[in-house]
């Protein structure tokens, strides 16, 4: 604009009046033209941003709040490993009967025997197809956990670890002043001097002589 102004000043003085008038009408509009061009660029940039945003922001973002709503479903879809005592009792009815009468009636099976689902030893298999490899390469995919197998589906080959009673029983029943007073506690060394607990106690109904008795004072949950 400056150059144009300078050029116009070099022209003859007699069209001075026209020049002033022209500047008012056209020159003002010319200045605004810069703004319009800038506004156009801004609109285009905004549209580009809007289109990219539409692709990049997940569909479920904002469904419930300022987060990805689909994440809730993804977390809810995680595999379960502790199936609950009902799953065990479908087959082990005899033990369930013993247990319901004993002091361990409310101690769930998996509290001692561990989860019914087990992870297979991690086989470091490479992702199957190219697409998965590409995702892994781009860091878009978490490394997959090894597959789960259930004792209920394959009772012969998948077996819960047989608990070592010296460790297992002692964890709960070793005497400690920190434990609640009513809870049955013994000093293992003094109580059995190394004899395994299961020699005298049935872990499913631990009070001696209570195997066929009526319900004793039950500890445990629910």
């Amino acid at each position, binding site marked *: 604009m400056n150059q144009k102004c300078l050029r116009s000043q070099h022209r003859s003085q007699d069209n001075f009046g026209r020049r002033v008038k022209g500047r008012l009408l056209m020159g003002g509009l010319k200045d605004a033209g810069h703004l319009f061009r800038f506004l156009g660029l801004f609109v285009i940039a905004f549209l580009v941003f809007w289109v990219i945003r539409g692709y990049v922001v997940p569909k479920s973002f904002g469904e419930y709040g300022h*987060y990805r709503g689909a994440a*809730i479903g993804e*977390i809810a*879809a995680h595999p379960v490993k502790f199936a609950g005592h009902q799953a065990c009792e479908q087959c082990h009815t005899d033990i369930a009967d013993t247990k319901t009468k004993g002091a361990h009636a409310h101690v769930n099976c998996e509290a001692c025997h561990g989860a019914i689902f087990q992870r297979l030893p991690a086989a470091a298999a490479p992702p199957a197809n*190219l697409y998965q490899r590409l995702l892994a390469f781009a860091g878009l995919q978490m490394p997959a956990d090894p597959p789960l197998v259930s004792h209920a589906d394959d009772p012969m080959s998948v077996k819960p670890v047989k608990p070592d009673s010296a460790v297992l029983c002692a*964890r*709960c029943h070793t005497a400690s*002043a920190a434990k609640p007073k009513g809870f049955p506690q013994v000093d293992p060394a003094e109580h059995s001097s190394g004899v395994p607990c299961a020699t005298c106690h049935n872990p499913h109904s631990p009070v001696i002589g209570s195997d066929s008795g009526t319900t004793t004072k039950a*500890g445990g949950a629910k």
Partner: protein
Amino acid sequence: MKISRRQLLILLPAAAVAWKHVLAGTPEDSPNYKMSDHWWGMLIDIPKCIGCGNCVRACQTENDVPDGFFRTWVERYHRSDYHLETPEVISPDGGKEGFPSVKEGEEGKFFFVPKMCNHCTDSPCTQVCPVGATFVTPDGVVLIDPKYCLGCAYCVQACPYGCRYIHPTKKVADKCTLCYHRITKGLTTACCEACPTGARQLVDLKNPNDPIHEFLKTHTVQILKPQMATGAKAFYNGLDGSVR
């Protein structure tokens, strides 16, 4: 990994098509579960806790929690009769393998305190997240979206209960989900399932038949750090004043 030009040209449109599915995630797995019908919390009955560490082990199994990190852990408090406000707290390996025994007649009071995410209604951790990767669900559970988390660890600092950590391999924030994958299927949490004494109970405050309502009427129940106004939903029965 080597990709030839031909493979790349084939892969790029495929990846563009698949990107939508990556963003959309998997649909909710529990069709009969209605989020608006629940408001989850946890009751922790301190006089029942024997410090066996079953909950810690069950949680690690259920949720593949890496060794040395804990979504729940158990602390043993020793509150001396002479220093009520400065208890001595131990938690060897999160209490996973139990605790050394305490002789009868020792000075002071010994007791166990299981700790976990309090699933706060007004949680400080979700307020500081810069990207919306952590949030309170409509049923009152604080969750983390691992695909959105940057691993900036603001939330780890913000949690007044120290319940969050950065996952060592995934490099994102991680914490207790209140076994969201279990409770939405009608099961209880892994820690409640494994607790031999019933010291932990999953509670649903929106369920009028939940025994928690009667329990709250008849017991002296507290939450941790009530002065922080977090709206914590881990209810502690018989909590000693020295617990922090």
